[in-house]
């Protein structure tokens, strides 16, 4: 037997026993490793994993608070929340995204834009099993069509959410603004906790100013979910605190009348309640439908709005800057009176023009042959420019700028008009700062008739008129009337205007009344037949704002170079209730275009004539019938 074939069984057995023992030792060692590993996970790291497990299981679902409603002064609903249905997809449960979208396209009208936006939303960071919106605002028909086919689409659901609805659409757009989907920039600013369940935020107007009040406080629901995000039971619930309802001073009836009388114009009106400063109406035409913006406006509609030459998105009432023209005269006159540079008795000879020091450039009066001898009263009634040239030259810019500043020109005094502009109140300091030029006497002349550098917004004109109607007592213009269950925050009020001679208020009222009601008044056509007395002032502003290189067709060039028509006024004169300012772009004449508009608004508010007169009654026929 060679060693090759010799098997030493004892040795082999010994080797095996030896190896088996080593192997068993190894088994024990590895088992020890496993025990150590589980000890590490289950004892040392227990708290960490227990927390992770709870976080898996227990979820804090935010319950978005219902947004506060907005009412007008009469309790008319201006902004509502309505249920809207959207189609959502859960990626983890959709087997084939591309095929699913294609099949959905056969059932619903999905635009490429919607599909693109969906893929963008899908890219954003999110938890597993979180639904992503594909199509918003499903119609009832679309819901029905989808429901029939639902079994074909695992992971696709119809979800309801409350979205903002503006029942008056265009009428309130420039007052309320609108809410829209929260964008990336807003995400950084908004409180991540309070907005955890909210998709919308105020973007403009009242919706933005009162966002905090309207939004409310988020609620929570502690729920146990499974891995697919399905809620199995509610463990705890803290209900959301609804946003507060607010009421505005806006009178939607007056707002509608105003919108109607401005139809066809690019124009703005601001009407203020003289007693409270509440804004009764604020209209800028043309307007737009804010409902389009809530769930995201489509590109074509947005471009149409953005590129329209009438710029409907532009809120002329608070952002349009116009030369106030002759509507500034009552305030300049008060400046002159207060500075003792003129009096109601002082008269000026108006040959149709004015020359500084009797020579040089001729500053023209709007009336070619002049008004002859004119006193202050008639300079207001007939809107005599020469009287004011003379006054401005003698007074200089400082008293004028000081008085106009007290009336709120050149600054924003409105409490809650978001985006209101300051306009320009020309003064020595302003000109030096803005243009690096000294003040010339001619600048004073231009300013005194509301031309030259002076620019003001319709809101500023209405505000100044309201202060005038209040005999200098300031009421800060505001939209907000009431916040449900909460005190209004204090509203800053500028110091009241005290004249050296308080009777000047009354004299000015009478002069402005005669503008509307005397035989020579520039606004007499609009004052005729009124059962109450109106105090007003017309203005006609030369247009200098249109850039010459812009391309308009010929007829538009013509139209857009015509004068702006302005009017300020308040009524009734003895006990002013409402003050307003009207600006009609390229309206040609303050007395011909702006004043009649104002009259209709006064009638509506004071006589409650909100309905459109059905047919202009023919007086002769009426008489015949009576007879």
């Amino acid at each position, binding site marked *: 037997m060679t*060693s*090759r*074939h*010799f*098997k*030493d*069984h*004892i*040795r*082999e*057995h010994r*080797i*095996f*026993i*030896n*190896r*088996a023992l080593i*192997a*068993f030792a190894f*088994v*024990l060692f*590895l*088992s020890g*490793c*496993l*025990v150590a*590993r*589980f*000890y590490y*996970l*289950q*004892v040392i*790291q*227990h708290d*960490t*994993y*227990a927390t*992770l*497990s*709870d976080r*898996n*299981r227990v979820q804090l679902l935010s319950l978005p608070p219902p947004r506060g409603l907005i009412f007008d002064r009469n309790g008319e609903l201006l902004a509502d929340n309505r249920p809207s249905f959207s189609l959502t997809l859960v990626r983890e449960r959709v087997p084939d995204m591309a095929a699913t979208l294609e099949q959905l396209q056969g059932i619903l009208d999905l635009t490429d834009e919607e599909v693109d936006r969906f893929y963008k939303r899908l890219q954003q960071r999110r938890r*597993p099993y979180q639904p992503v919106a594909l199509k918003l605002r499903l119609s009832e028909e679309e819901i029905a069509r989808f429901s029939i086919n639902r079994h074909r689409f695992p992971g696709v659901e119809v979800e309801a959410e409350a979205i903002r609805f503006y029942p008056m659409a265009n009428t309130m757009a420039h007052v309320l603004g609108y809410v829209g989907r929260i964008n990336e920039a807003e995400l950084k600013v908004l409180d991540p906790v309070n907005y955890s369940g909210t998709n919308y935020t105020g973007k403009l107007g009242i919706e933005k100013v009162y966002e905090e009040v309207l939004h409310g406080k988020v609620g929570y629901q502690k729920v*146990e*979910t*499974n*891995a*697919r995000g399905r809620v*199995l039971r509610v463990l705890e619930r803290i209900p959301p605190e609804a946003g507060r309802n607010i009421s505005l001073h806006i009178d939607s009836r007056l707002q509608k009348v105003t919108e109607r009388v401005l139809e066809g114009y690019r124009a703005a009106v601001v009407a203020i309640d003289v007693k409270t400063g509440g804004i009764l109406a604020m209209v800028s035409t043309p307007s737009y439908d804010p409902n389009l913006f809530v769930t995201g406006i489509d590109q074509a509609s947005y471009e149409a709005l953005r590129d329209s030459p009438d710029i409907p998105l532009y809120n002329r009432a608070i952002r349009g800057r116009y030369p106030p023209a002759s509507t500034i005269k009552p305030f300049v006159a008060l400046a002159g009176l207060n500075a003792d540079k003129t009096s109601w008795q002082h008269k000026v000879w108006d040959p149709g023009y004015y020359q500084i020091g009797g020579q040089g450039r001729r500053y023209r009066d709007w009336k070619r042959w002049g008004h002859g001898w004119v006193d202050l009263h008639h300079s207001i009634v007939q809107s005599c420019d020469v009287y004011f040239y003379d006054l401005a030259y003698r007074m200089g810019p400082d008293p004028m700028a000081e008085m106009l500043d007290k009336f709120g020109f050149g600054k924003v005094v409105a409490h809650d008009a978001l985006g209101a502009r300051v306009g320009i109140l020309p003064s020595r300091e302003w000109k030096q700062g803005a243009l690096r030029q000294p003040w010339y006497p001619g600048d004073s002349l231009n300013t005194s008739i509301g031309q030259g550098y002076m620019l003001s917004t319709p809101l500023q004109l209405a505000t100044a008129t309201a202060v005038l109607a209040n005999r200098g007592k300031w009421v800060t213009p505001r939209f907000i009337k009431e916040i449900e269950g909460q005190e209004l925050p204090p509203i800053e009020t500028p110091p009241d205007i005290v004249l050296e001679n308080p009777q000047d208020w009354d004299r000015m009222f009478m002069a402005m009344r005669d503008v509307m009601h005397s035989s020579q008044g520039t606004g007499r056509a609009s004052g005729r037949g009124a059962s109450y007395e109106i105090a007003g002032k017309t203005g006609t502003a030369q247009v200098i704002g249109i850039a010459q290189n812009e391309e308009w067709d010929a007829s538009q060039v013509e139209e857009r170079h015509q004068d702006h028509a302005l009017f300020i006024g308040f009524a009734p004169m003895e006990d002013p209730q409402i003050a307003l300012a009207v600006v009609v772009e390229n309206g040609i004449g303050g007395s011909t275009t702006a004043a009649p508009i104002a009259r209709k608004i006064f009638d509506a508010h004071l006589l409650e004539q909100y309905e459109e007169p059905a047919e202009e009654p023919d007086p002769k026929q009426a008489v015949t019938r009576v007879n």
Partner: protein
Amino acid sequence: MKSSDFVRQLPEAGRHLGRPQSLSARLHIDVPLLVLLLILAGSGLFILYSASGASLDDVFKQAGRIGVAFVIMFALAQLDPATYRRWSLWIYLAGIGALIAVLVVGVGAKGAQRWLQLPGLPRFQPSEFMKLAVPMTVAWYLASRTLPPRLKHIAIAMGILGLPVLLVIEQPDLGTAILIAASGLVVLFMAGLSWKWIGGLAGLIAVGAPIMWFFVMLPYQKQRVLTFLNPEEDPLGSGWNIIQSKTAIGSGGLSGKGWLSGTQSHLDFLPESHTDFIIAVLAEEFGLLGVCLLLLLYVLIVARGLYIASQAQDTYSRLAAGCIAITFFVYVFVNIGMVSGLLPVVGVPLPLISYGGTSALTLMAGFGILMSIHTHKKMLTR
């Protein structure tokens, strides 16, 4: 042959011949092993009930499979170990044929062909079958050579081992290939492979791993390894399983959340909770204590297996029995190590606990052979 051989063997032999055979001996059953296996399978069904979301259906189905597996075990225990030794090579060759057939006409899913569907036979997985056939064949080969094995025999044993491993890698099924390789290597180790060679082999693996990485492993396999190294990198994708299983284990604590109260598994956060990841359910519901008890059960089974091996009469039986016991533990370790984040995720079920029939069948067949070895002793050894 030395007289001491007789001294060593006689008491054992006397137990069988001298006294009337007990029922268990006549049935060729090793009672301690059977009891341990029954306890293990019973606990498995108990955990499965919770892991499957209290589905009695699943429990009955699995009980049926376990029952079949026990029947196979009884059947295989009746055969003489000599039969296994004689048939080893043929079984092996049939297995190789099946593996080649899988590559040619096999069926499967997810880009891997693992199943063979022969007319008239139930669908089966030849690689699973090779987990048993390969070590038995290596044992057969080495047992008829002098031990410890010499270079030539090692080389041939490695060849026997390597061919099916390569075929299984081709399927591709890296996890099973590694397990088959491991079982063959265990035989070599048990046969007394010198420490020099063991060290060399370890070095070879160290060098081979990068080669495997770049030339053999498929992207999904690499992804599993990467996920193992850093599961937090993709917590919602491929890292999800391991993070959730660690969370389940860790949140169980010392004594667990209680039977049927594991939130991770019952709320579906834990994937594969009733198959490969079932130990996480146990750990979550019964805590560290439950895990230790289960491990103890496994170690006892391995110990009994090794005891049977050490009592076996010939080298082939010893090697086969030792390998079956150690391989059983390898499965246990790989599965628990993977679920607890010690090892990369490979599809290895937890022996006799995880839901599924194939692995239980192979394991119980192995235990059948163990019992056969223990209960067919002859008076004299060769």
